[in-house]
């Protein structure tokens, strides 16, 4: 079984895993990083959304082999210590979460979007395909706009 070196939330880690193991299970089952959630395993719900070298990915469909020596950021690594990322802060201010299960993915998708699009339009926000079964979409929209202003 190959060994992979990764930088997860700023730390060097190395894991033994088959090359085709999705990053989601490396994070959750081998590294104990449980912020990224399993909702479908096929890239459809986006509950697992995290960043690979700063770009949005769905770790449930990205094999570990594609992550070797790269930077991975999960929801746990988004804040700067005790200081929340502006997206997290906006989420709190708008009281977005209900059950909260989809929210790590929603927040990571938004954080990635705002890196390349400082002022997303309603149409840009509509393009975010993360599922929220609890139906928090209206507050998500408000929080994205608030975070964009921050």
């Amino acid at each position, binding site marked *: 079984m190959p060994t992979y070196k990764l930088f997860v939330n700023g730390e060097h880690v190395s894991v033994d895993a088959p090359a085709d193991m*999705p990053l989601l299970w490396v994070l959750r089952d081998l590294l104990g990083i449980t912020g990224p*959630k399993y909702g479908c*395993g096929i890239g459809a719900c986006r509950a697992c959304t995290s960043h690979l070298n700063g770009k949005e990915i769905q770790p449930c469909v990205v094999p570990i082999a594609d992550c070797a020596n790269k930077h991975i950021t999960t929801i746990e690594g988004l804040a700067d210590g005790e200081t929340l990322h502006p997206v*997290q802060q906006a989420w709190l*201010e708008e*009281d977005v979460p209900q*059950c*909260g299960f989809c929210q790590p993915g929603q927040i990571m998708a938004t954080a990635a979007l705002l890196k390349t699009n400082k002022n997303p339009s309603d149409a840009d926000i509509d393009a975010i395909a993360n599922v929220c*079964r609890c*139906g928090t979409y209206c507050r998500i929209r408000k929080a994205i706009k608030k975070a964009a202003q921050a």
Partner: protein
Amino acid sequence: MSTGTSAVGRRRFITFLVAAPTLTIAARLGIDVTADAPAMAAGRPTTTSSEPTTEADLGTTYVLRVTSDNRIIFESPKADVGQGISTALAMLIAEDLDARLTDVHSELADADNLPGQSVGGSRSIRDAYDPVREMAAQARARLVTAAARRWGVAADTLTTRDTAVHAPDGRSETYGALAADAASVTSPDVATTPKPISEHTIIGTPASQQEGRAIVTGAMRFSLDVAVDGALPTVVARPPTIYGTVESVDASDTEAMSGVVAVTTIPTGVAVTARTFHEAQRGREALRVTWGPGPVDDVSDSTVNERLAQAIPPFADPPLLSDHVDGRFEFAFVNHAPMETNAATADVRPNSAVVWSSTKVPNGTRRQVAEAIGLPEDAVTVHVTRGGGSFGRRLSSEAQIEAALVSQALGRPVKVMWTRDDDTQHGRMRPASMHRMRITYLAGEMVSFENLSSAVQLDFGLSPVIIGIDPGALGYPSIGSAFFALTQHTPYALGTETKELNEVPFEFPTATWRSVYSGHNRAAEELMMDRLASKLGKDPLGLRIALANDQPAKALLRRLRSESAWGTALPAGWAQGIGYHEEYDGRAGCVVTIDATDPAAPRVTSALVAADMGIPVNPMGLEAQFMGSVMDGIASILRAGNHIDSGSVRESSFADFLWPRQRHAPTNFRLVLMPTTGTSIAGAGEIAIPAAAAAVASAYGRATGTQPWRFPLNF
């Protein structure tokens, strides 16, 4: 020692001081504290509908503890799966304890011995409102008394605020510093009655969810996030058809795979336990299982619809010269699909077992797990974790039972996760239903309303909503038909009402879906109001106001009319739609605007909910519940449903089970709360769903010039 009993409406409770080193007060609801217990168990009418007796009558315990570090710990028997119960309960406590809300911490209690420890029927806050506030008032009185004795002053000169007692001379002491003394105050020197509403500063003021920070930082632990040493990932291979059986298993390839630890046959399938969920899933794919048939292998949608149609009797002969409007409505099965799939961790030892999972029925789960593994109930501990949604899903305990069985077989802890396809194809669903309705009128007067419905049999399982219902004694053929009759209340004066639900006994995995029958049946009734209005050439909202049963209903509908600018001209293909509903001691109406220029891809662009909640506890939480309810309405009316093909659910994931995304959500949502009546308190979790579902269907019909009748529409 008892500190007092009270009766609030029909719910009675007792609060008592618990012997402990630090101030601890408990409240218990239940028939065991009432004199007229047998009468209560039979069910009593409440204000707007006749709801069955539930958990309140069978016992629930709340415990409040003040710790020396000035924290107020509340052991909540009410599982939080996103409804915001924990925050609302903390608000009740902070209000009557005069504590800072941030000092009150709700913890989910383990399974207890009382059947009432359950969440369902939108009852949690209604049941907790009085006892929890009284507990807090009892605790406050003891803290004040302890301070008075310590300082040698009269208790009635002291005040409380910000989790501390204050004396007129400026001295103050935190509750934490007084908690040990207060624990021995048996008879407080000040009143123990909760505040009047006019003095509320926390109840009724928007508060954000207490768990917010843990959620947005990824620290919140859901069922499978709990770190249990050595608990191995496990998935279960399930039959190709619903409730199929395992006939034989060849696991040789699986057992040879790297990472696979064990293969275990259990009643529901074949479990593969591995180092990771990835390896468990790969192992599952390599199994060769011969499956036996299930009970509905020869059943498809067409079979279901045929049987549902057959189960509906004909309408009565209409009176001479009368006119009538008819409707027929069909709703497909719809999966609960909580974002977190069915999941549990279990550690079963020879004489004991521990389960970690989200469940809305902790002691029902405990009982079922104990039965499955052959241990006495008190040898099983169920730690309730936060759940990633429920909508009725977490009223059954399949994953917990499976985890316990596999752990017992392997002699080590395991965590069972249902994959999304497991949960879509073998998880629970709202039963498919059919509704035939007729409103008969004569010379402008409403003569009768017939609602003859049928549905696939609903498995109520451990749901608390049916506790106390004896269908036989009430004269109904099934629990479902009795529950339907007790809960389905039409808020309009339509003359003589005939309403019945005929259940068709197919063995599908069903469960109560948020709002149970109201989400489809009441939505269909609302669509009948639209049809009636159209036949009579009247405005649908105006007709509802005219026919509404009482003044509060008319007031809410009028408010909805003014707040929504009802009747504003809209572009072609656009329309407003309306729905109204009464249940759970409250009222909710909804107006949505839809853009159906492309009828195959309609979008609800804005939604307004007006609600009469009696005493709103947390307006922020209410808004969240109603926003979610609107999305449930959009989903179940426009997009999300399940097909049955020869005993299998066709959909398998969020790729084909079309739950709405951001691009299907309104960009504008608004909640209007009717003025506080100060007399009752309403349940928020389900009340807006029938109104929202109706409003979406109504808007679609008006925008497209059609009469929608089969849901979801684009399916």
